[in-house]
């Protein structure tokens, strides 16, 4: 029922309330709009700078260009570690919306990525937000061209042409040079610790094409080899597609410095070759300068496997092989030097005042206390002077002399240390040196809490390089270099030159505290080892290089205790239990230049198995040395008839035909 109801009070009341409420609404809206305008002012006027930066960061993108890594060259400029071009496909996770779709699109061009899909996804998920992840590496040119054409249409996908490390000599240098690999979390932590904070971390470290040195020279000189990353500035849109490249923003990468080593690639290769299947290490150095020409550990591994990331299966095989290919047997492992140590012992005796002409009768064994110590020759060597004892490697002579007042463990240790054993070389470039042990009374006191007293019976073992004595191949080589040098305590080094900067070799070697006459006696003993028909290495250390001769010392270091072993022969027992074979030498015997030490792990005998290897390596070093060449290549004996014949006089009618300096094209014979 319609009714015109004019109840004024109600009407007025409604209108009044409405007006108040409308004012209120107006107030709320006004407040809201003022707040929005204020917010707009805050964003645009106060924080404008920040958002302008973010805006240009959106618009422009810096793509890093990894620098070519410096090369590693041998002493003659032969490239040992170089770079080769490598094409790879990268994915920037931050610019990809749907990773599965993106990978599907890539798989369309590169079907091989389908097989690795799970591994790729794992890599992408583990990568840092703004670091690109490589999903396919080492593409051939055809695939690369296909992806390159296609990549600009797939958001977040980029192709890169990097250089990757290549080790031209494969395993020959693996241990000295080491290898490069992708940066690990541990490496990153170390980098963080070095630079202070993560902000300053060079972003190139996270680039998938970038590798850092993990071992050896690559690690020790990583900073020099790295170089400085370049960058290109590109304009991208929201989906990450490249709109334009800003050539003004291009900054080329600076290549790393080249490192020139003292090593010789040919000698190094020869060393790997002569070792064959055997396990061990060989070090050859210049006795005057300390330059290491060869430092090779066998068996080796291919460092190229590590560059793009070795599979865990392959790594497992390397790691678990009993001949330990991953171990650097020149510096990273120490062995009992065996009889090679006797040169040091003999020198200690001489320095102590023992008369070298004094004879000791070797009956094949030596009784000390209630124990019998056997000589390696069952029947005995008969009466031995020091010279004979070195030549024959007579154990009984050293047993007999070592506990005299003039000798003793402390004197032997002191001599050995002065010759370079029992400590690491501070100036040697690569990490991983083992100290080894040169025992004396002090050592026994600190290392053996339960039995701190030195027993004279232990001196017997030490005198023949057994017992507690352990040395590395590098120490043995240095020891022989010092014996051969005679005056200076040379120290080994590996790096000649970094970039254009010649590394000044360490010249201020300390003087050796040995008398010249004493050194001559032990050297003569070593000469006899190799050149006397009765010497222990006569058969296996003849160089056959003119009048150049080698002076050496064999060593056979036992691995197992012989006490309860009746059969001392090494054939037919497990490899792990066989004796180590060692050989140390210098050459030429008359005017030494090079020293060598060869350790053949479980190689049974120094004479039979180590000496031939040392001979081959030394031979190559001598042949390659121009000074030695002059001695090796003797002038042909001159035929007296020819020598006395008068010179053929040049007559004018027999003048030689003038040379046609500009031959006509017809005159050139067809190829």
């Amino acid at each position, binding site marked *: 029922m319609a*009714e015109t109801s004019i109840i004024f009070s109600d*009407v007025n009341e*409604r209108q009044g309330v409405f007006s108040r409420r409308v004012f209120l609404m*107006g107030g709320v809206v006004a407040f809201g709009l003022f707040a929005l305008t204020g917010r*707009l002012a805050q*964003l645009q*006027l106060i*924080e404008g700078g920040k958002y302008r930066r973010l805006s240009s960061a959106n618009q422009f993108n810096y793509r890093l260009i990894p620098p070519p890594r410096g090369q590693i060259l041998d002493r003659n400029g032969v490239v040992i570690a170089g770079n080769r071009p490598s094409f790879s496909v990268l994915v920037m996770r931050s610019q990809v919306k749907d990773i599965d779709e993106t990978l599907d699109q890539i798989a369309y061009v590169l079907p091989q990525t389908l097989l690795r899909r799970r591994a790729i996804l794992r890599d992408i998920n583990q990568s840092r937000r703004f670091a690109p992840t490589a999903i396919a590496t080492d593409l051939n040119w055809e695939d690369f061209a296909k992806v390159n054409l296609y990549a600009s249409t797939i958001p977040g996908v980029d192709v890169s042409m990097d250089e990757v490390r290549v080790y031209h000599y494969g395993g020959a240098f693996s241990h000295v040079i080491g290898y490069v690999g992708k940066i690990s979390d541990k490496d990153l932590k170390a980098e963080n610790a070095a630079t202070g904070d993560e902000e300053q971390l060079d972003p190139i470290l996270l680039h998938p094409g970038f590798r850092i040195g993990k071992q050896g020279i690559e690690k020790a000189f990583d900073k020099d080899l790295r170089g400085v990353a370049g960058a290109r500035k590109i304009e991208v849109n929201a989906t990450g597609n490249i709109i334009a490249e800003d050539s003004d923003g291009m900054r080329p990468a600076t290549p790393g410095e080249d490192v020139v080593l003292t090593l010789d690639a040919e000698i190094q290769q020869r060393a790997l070759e002569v070792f064959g299947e055997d396990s061990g290490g060989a070090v050859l150095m210049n006795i005057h300068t300390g330059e290491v020409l060869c430092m090779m550990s066998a068996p080796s591994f291919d460092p190229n496997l590590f560059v793009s990331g070795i599979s865990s299966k392959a790594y497992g095989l390397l790691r678990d092989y009993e001949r330990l290919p991953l171990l650097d047997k020149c510096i990273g492992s120490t062995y009992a030097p065996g009889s090679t140590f006797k040169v040091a012992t003999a020198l200690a005796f001489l320095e102590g005042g023992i008369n070298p002409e004094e004879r000791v009768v070797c009956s094949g064994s030596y009784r000390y206390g209630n124990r019998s110590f056997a000589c390696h020759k069952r029947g005995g060597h008969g009466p031995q002077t020091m010279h004979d004892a070195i030549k024959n490697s007579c154990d009984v002579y050293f047993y007999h002399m070592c506990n005299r007042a003039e000798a003793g463990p402390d004197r032997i240790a002191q001599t050995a240390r002065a010759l370079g054993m029992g400590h690491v070389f501070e100036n040697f470039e690569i990490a991983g040196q083992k100290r080894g042990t040169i025992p004396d009374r002090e050592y026994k006191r600190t290392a053996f809490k339960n039995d701190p007293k030195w027993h004279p019976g232990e001196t017997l073992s030490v005198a023949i390089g057994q017992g507690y004595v352990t040395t590395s191949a590098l120490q043995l080589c240095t020891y022989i270099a010092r014996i051969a040098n005679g005056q200076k305590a040379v120290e080994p080094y590996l790096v000649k030159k970094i970039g254009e900067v010649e590394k000044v070799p360490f010249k201020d070697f300390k003087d050796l505290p040995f008398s010249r006459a004493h050194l001559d006696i032990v050297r003569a003993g070593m000469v006899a080892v190799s050149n006397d028909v009765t010497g222990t290495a006569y058969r296996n250390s003849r160089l056959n290089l003119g009048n150049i001769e080698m002076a050496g010392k064999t060593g056979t270091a036992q691995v197992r205790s012989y006490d309860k072993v009746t059969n001392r022969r090494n054939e037919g027992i497990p490899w792990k239990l066989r004796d180590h074979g060692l050989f140390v030498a210098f050459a030429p015997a008359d005017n030494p230049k090079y020293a060598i030490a060869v350790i053949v792990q479980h190689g049974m005998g120094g004479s039979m198995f180590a000496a031939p290897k040392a001979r081959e390596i030394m031979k190559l070093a001598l042949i390659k040395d121009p000074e030695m060449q002059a001695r090796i290549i003797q002038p042909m004996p001159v035929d007296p008839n020819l020598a006395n014949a008068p010179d053929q006089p040049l007559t004018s009618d027999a003048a030689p035909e003038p040379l046609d300096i500009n031959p006509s094209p017809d005159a050139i014979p067809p190829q």
Partner: protein
Amino acid sequence: MAESALTRPGQRERYQNKFAQIDWTLCLMMALIAGMGSLVLYSVGGMSWDPWAYDHLFRFGLCFVVMIGLSMINLSIWLSISYWAYGGSLLLLVAVELFGKVKMGAQRWLDIGITDIQPSEFMKLAIVLALARWYHENSAKDANWSWKLLVPIFMILIPFTLVAHQPDLGTAMLILITGVAVMVAAGLNWKAIATAAGAGIVAIPFVFTFVLHDYQAKRITTFLDPESDPSGSGYHILQSKIAMGSGGLLGKGLGLGSQSQLNFLPEKHTDFIMAAVSEELGFVGGASVFLLYGLVIFMALRIAMLSHSHFGRLAVAGAIATFAVYVLINGAMVMGLAPVVGVPMPLLSYGGSVMLTVMVGFGLIQGVRVHRYQELPRQNSIFARFE
């Protein structure tokens, strides 16, 4: 006022007189906003009238004619159709619930043969008309504590629930806020408002866990911390803030906004058009747009105050409240002050249906202005016999 001199019967009903009563200043302000929209659409369309700028102007022109036409309709007709309009919209919403088409994960559309319609758009206006009629016919006291309070509450909550279930949280919130605005304007007492606000706050955690879809909840959480996920859900807000912030005082210039032009800015022609305006025209441009919106809203509120009928007042208040809520929510959203809900900037954003809804609302507002002297009878409501 000069218009009040028209006292002869029927004179106000002449169309030329009605035409003169239209608030042309308000029309000018609206045209300025739409023109500004067209300018920016021209820019983000790659300095081209295609695909958006021309369409936008054309639609505004078409809807403007519709608005003028609607403004000629007598208020008594609006009043009489209000419940029918509400009832019809509600039926359509139920139909959507039952037979609606699913697009982009939401069931919002109804296929009527020629085209798809979105009944929730009708409801925005219908709720205003229905509530305005309810409070027109009931006394101010009824707006306070009484059983009659339940009727408008259900009038709001039923469409709110249906639309929220589609799910279309933006439109549902808009219906809720508009309805509440009409109730508040009608004189709902403060105790009731405070109680409702308290209940709302208590309900938030419940709504968050049980009612909201995952993507809706995520929008709200990323709104609270947009930088946590730059290319996920927070991407929109962050890119919008970068666009606006990098504009500075005077902007990068038309066609030169890198954020808008290189597609960093999502939905730059619809929901995020304010970010494009601010990037290219700077603080000056952005603040001018807000100023224009302020003027439009205050002119409409003034029209509400001038109306002689309570229905007219409430209808204008409700219609302009919808408009104001659009502006405030969109503005807050693009500047990272509110979660990303699909609410466009009225008149500025590209989009046909929202343009039509807004212009029909302005048709009602202009109609109230034209018929402001009209007294409407307070018919006995269906509940009158209980009084």
